[in-house]
């Protein structure tokens, strides 16, 4: 039974693409066939984060408009042979996606994969609507700051009204992924606490991704953080999140960096 998962947020720059790559890779690690699809037409970042940017020949728009076959556009990941990337186009404008075309491509992807993970553009415009339209499950990515939380609230409202599932009157499964979380700063009142965010958004928590250099390093080397540095705190958080997504019951902890005794003594980083 294939599942379409959309990774979405209201505000930009909260970590949708990073999360799409990390969760897509984490799901593929367990042997499931996973396609990550970049819906952010005009910007195109997912292929970069996945390290596939030099192998893009055809993209989502070519497939949607019938200029290329799905098999031609899908790029197989070099590290995991069950992980595929469907990149977006940087050269075409964002209105090139048609509703019928997207519906057809999503149906085709469903036939070939266990998970179709869609990386949505930020905001509430047409691109974001098309990305969430055919989803069965949604991950709402939020930073612990008020503007991000309010925009996420808006997106949750749209997930409940504008998706195919919602229009059929079915329940849309939604999860909250809290990224760039810094427990120490939250404790000092410099960012929203987990409980505050949950109270405002009232959807189940999928995971808390701590603020970490590992995330930046991973995207710079073009590899999902769950593959390149799988023992880092954010990677462990993403791996746990992926398992929760599959219905496993794992206690919620905020992972912290594992550091040796010596580095704890001497390795104090500037905040």
């Amino acid at each position, binding site marked *: 039974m294939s599942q379409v998962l959309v990774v979405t947020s209201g505000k930009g720059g909260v970590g949708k693409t990073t999360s799409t790559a990390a969760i897509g890779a984490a799901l593929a690690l367990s042997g499931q066939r996973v396609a990550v699809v970049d819906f952010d037409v005009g910007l195109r970042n997912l292929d970069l984060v996945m390290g596939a940017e030099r192998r893009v020949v055809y993209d989502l728009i070519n497939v949607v408009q019938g200029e290329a076959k799905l098999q031609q556009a899908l790029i197989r990941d070099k590290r995991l042979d069950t992980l595929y990337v469907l990149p977006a186009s940087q050269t075409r404008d964002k209105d090139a996606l048609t509703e019928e075309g997207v519906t057809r491509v999503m149906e085709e992807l469903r036939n070939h994969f266990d998970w179709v993970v869609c990386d949505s553009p930020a905001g509430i415009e047409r691109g974001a609507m098309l990305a969430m339209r055919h989803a069965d499950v949604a991950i709402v990515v939020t930073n612990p700051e008020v503007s991000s939380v*309010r*925009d996420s*609230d*808006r997106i949750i*409202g749209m997930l409940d009204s504008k998706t195919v599932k919602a229009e059929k009157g079915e329940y849309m499964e939604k999860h909250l992924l809290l990224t760039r979380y810094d427990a120490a700063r939250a404790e000092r009142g410099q960012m929203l606490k987990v409980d505050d965010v949950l109270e*405002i958004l009232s959807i189940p928590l999928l995971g808390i991704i701590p603020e970490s250099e590992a995330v930046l390093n991973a995207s710079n080397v073009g590899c999902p953080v769950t593959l390149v540095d799988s023992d880092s705190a954010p990677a462990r958080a993403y791996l746990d999140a992926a398992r929760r997504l599959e219905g496993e019951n794992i206690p919620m902890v905020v992972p912290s960096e594992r550091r040796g005794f010596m580095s704890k003594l001497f390795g104090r980083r500037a905040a």
Partner: protein
Amino acid sequence: MLTRAAPATRIFLQALTPSETHGFFVRSVNGPGVVNHSLTSVSHRLLNRRQIAIVATPASKQRAAIRFRGRSFLATVLAPELPLAEWLAELDKLSKRSEGYFASRPVILDVTGLAITKRDFAELIAMLYEREIKVMGVEGADPSWLGFGMPPSVSGGKQTEILHKPSAEPPKQQQSFADRAIPSLLIETPVRSGQSIIFPQGDVTVVGSVASGAEIIAGNSIHIYGTLRGRAIAGSTGNAGARIFCQKFEAELIAIDGLYQTADDLDASLRGRPIQAWLANDKMNMAALA
């Protein structure tokens, strides 16, 4: 409370009877005041007058408050089809069968997707006028068509059944108070940022929270069994007896019968507590619930 140095700012929508105006405006009684009625939404089958926000310029001397009231009306929607000559002929046939049907009826003209020019449109309006059909609003028209002297543009209508009652029917007996249903809207999901719940018919009850950036507009009272972070506008149709109840009070704005208070004016000691708000002598009162 609401007696500040600046004159009390009120938000209301004034309903004018359709026969008076063929439309509706925001009527300012006296004094300058910037009225922003961009939120006013009127519709196709149901005209739904909404709360509007007004910003009153601080005035040096005391002035009478301006009132705006909201009211909903049913309107008949005519959607012409091409060719217009044929459509008008059909219309004539129809109105011959029930004479005077359009005589006292507000009509909204729906020209969505109709491939006509500005001149065709003006002609159409004139032809309808000739048939004594008063167009009180136009939906889906190009903004450039609607100059001065044209009916105003409307949008966002809600579909509703239009009941055609035979006129011979005797007037209905007044129902006793006990039999009359008091309409109420129950919302069991959180009201999300950007959502707007408008229910001029009566009470709104929310089992959940109202997010910051969301608004509830009710003709009567508002009950929120959760946190109120957004706006609550009760008694929007001019009901000063309406109240606002909420389990946890973090509101951006509350209003009853047009009198409103924003977060900045509110008593800070009530934040985060269960409260109720009501009007007494045109003053907003708020108290914590035990």
